[in-house]
């Protein structure tokens, strides 16, 4: 186990390093990215520009600039080029909002996906299955920005059922917190509900044909016991993998559009603003933040996997 964890940790560091280099390089080759000119602003003159370039170290070679930036990342001194605000603090401010959004949406999407996938598989070919299939396809095909806009239009302005925007912190008022986040949760979850229920359905149909399911029936378990204990449990293994990856990705940037639509000032919104301003430090900060979560959940998935499937846990080959 210790070896496994070490290996994952080393892997994480390598991935994060590679990502930081890539972001840095991409930023430096895109047109209009010259940070000196951007800071200098509209009334720029040569003297000012030279001064800025010198102060911020934009004249240094790229490797030196990279090292300087990474130093700032690790000391928490990274400062935005455009707003001069500390990146760490800005991300920290956004974290509760982003986490509220993502965790809530994840709970919704897993719960609905399991229920829908299970029903679909059990009633395979029947009316329920077909209806859920159509629903899932609609959910998968619906772009987040469109769904979000539609929900906003109909449920906040035409029928004033939900608040239009804003965030109330969980600690100050849990009910308002959930109320304000309800539409964003739905918007973010719909795609995943559709996708996951399809995956679970097909896994379950595969597992139902396994010999051990027949064994379970032959020993006189009820159909329900067979389905939940033997079919569902074994079908969840691939779904858990997907979930780990997707949840990491959603926290690390997948919620950007949802946050923008619903004006939630989370990490995603911060990233969106930074991208509009071609502002390297926040982009770097947010990207590393996101990448960290993706890699972290990846590792978590592997551990969960071992818990779900003893053949992996013990490191012996299957069968």
């Amino acid at each position: 186990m210790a070896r496994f964890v070490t290996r994952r940790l080393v892997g994480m560091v390598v991935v994060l390093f590679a990502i930081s280099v890539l972001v840095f390089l991409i930023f430096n080759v895109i047109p209009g990215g010259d940070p000196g000119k951007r800071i200098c602003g509209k009334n720029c003159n040569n003297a000012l520009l030279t001064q800025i370039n010198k102060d911020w170290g934009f004249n240094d070679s790229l490797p030196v600039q990279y090292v300087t930036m990474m130093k700032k990342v690790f000391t928490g001194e990274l400062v935005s080029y455009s707003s001069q605000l500390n990146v760490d603090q800005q991300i920290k401010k956004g974290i509760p909002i982003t986490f509220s959004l993502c965790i809530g949406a994840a709970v919704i999407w897993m719960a609905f996906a399991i229920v829908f996938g299970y029903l679909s598989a059990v009633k395979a070919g029947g009316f329920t299955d077909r209806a859920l299939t159509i629903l899932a396809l609609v959910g998968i095909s619906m772009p987040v920005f469109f769904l979000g806009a539609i929900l906003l239009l109909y449920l906040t302005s035409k029928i004033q059922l939900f608040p239009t925007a804003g965030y109330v912190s969980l600690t100050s008022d849990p009910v308002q917190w959930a109320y304000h986040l309800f539409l964003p949760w739905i918007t973010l979850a719909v795609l995943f509900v559709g996708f996951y229920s399809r995956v679970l359905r097909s896994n379950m149909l595969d597992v139902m044909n396994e010999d051990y399911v027949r064994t379970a029936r032959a020993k006189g378990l009820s159909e329900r016991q067979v389905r939940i204990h033997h079919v569902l449990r074994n079908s969840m293994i691939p779904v858990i993998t997907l979930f780990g990856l997707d949840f990491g990705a959603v926290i690390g940037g997948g919620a950007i559009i949802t946050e923008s639509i619903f004006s939630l000032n989370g990490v995603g919104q911060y990233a969106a603003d930074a991208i509009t301003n071609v502002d390297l430090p926040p982009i770097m900060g947010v990207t590393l933040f996101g990448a960290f979560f993706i890699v972290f959940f990846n590792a978590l998935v592997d551990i969960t996997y071992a818990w779900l499937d003893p053949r992996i846990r013990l490191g012996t080959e299957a069968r």
Partner: protein
Amino acid sequence: MSEQLLSVRDLRVRFTTEDGIVHAVDGVSFDLAAGEVLAIVGESGSGKSVTAQTIMGLTRSPNARIEGSVAYRGRELLTADDEELMRVRGEEIAMIFQDPMTSLNPVYKVGDQIGEAIQAHRHESDHKAREQTIELLAAVGIPDPSKRVDNYPHEYSGGMRQRAMIAMGLALEPTVLIADEPSTALDVTIQAQILRLLEQLNRDRDLAVIIITHDLGVVAEIADRVLVMYGGRIIESGSLEQIFYDPQHPYTWGLLGSLARPDRPRTMRLSQITGQPPSLLAPPAGCHFRPRCPHAFDRCTRVPPLETRVGENHADRCWLSVEQKKTLRVVKTGEIGLEAPAA
């Protein structure tokens, strides 16, 4: 005469598939008495597994048409509702399967899977179920059962897994154990051990066993009575001695002739049955064995009835007269069938 446990009458199972209707089982009837070992022999696709699984209600599905009757102690199982079927499964009739590698759920401990069967039928505490499980594992010859009970299936060898499957089958003390090719996936020495175990259970617990196999060696070792199936039908049935020493159906001759025997010269070629088993999508009209039978004649285009022709309880489906069979069987010794019994 011991009690009749299971009575199967004119069982027909058809599956609707994309390619058409598969006539998997076509009018199978047999009885099973308490303490008896019945072997159902046949090649792949002869309907032997479907027959066995249908007894347990395991072939029920929207695309299956099941007709006839399966009665366990007078109770009809084909029309039984799910709850009644659940009670019969495991408690009255247990089943073990061909491939012990895939028949146990890889994510649960072996002991939990056996305990699950106990707790599904009886309200036992976890502790009690575990103790019973350990006893069962010991009874089927798992070494160090109190430790092995906590192992996962992949930590067991193939033979041990089949033993665990048998332990699971025995958990609720059924009267009938259906063993669907229990030794096919195992190597020869383990095969023998598993058969010996089944034999011992049959003797000690008076457990009736239906053993499904394509291996006549297995049959010779364990069976009291034999059903030979071909193309979804029983083509010959009789006692072990009758089938081995006085086989009536040319297909049975072929099966016996293809056995390697230590009393024959090693250089002798084993005989084989030419051709392919019939497609159950479009089985040949009349006798299903006709296209492959060296002795087929015009009458064989009609289905021969399963009739008693030679001895008591020895029935076969062949139009040949008893005298014809005797000559053909002896003359063709080298090619098909086997010599007359060394009386």
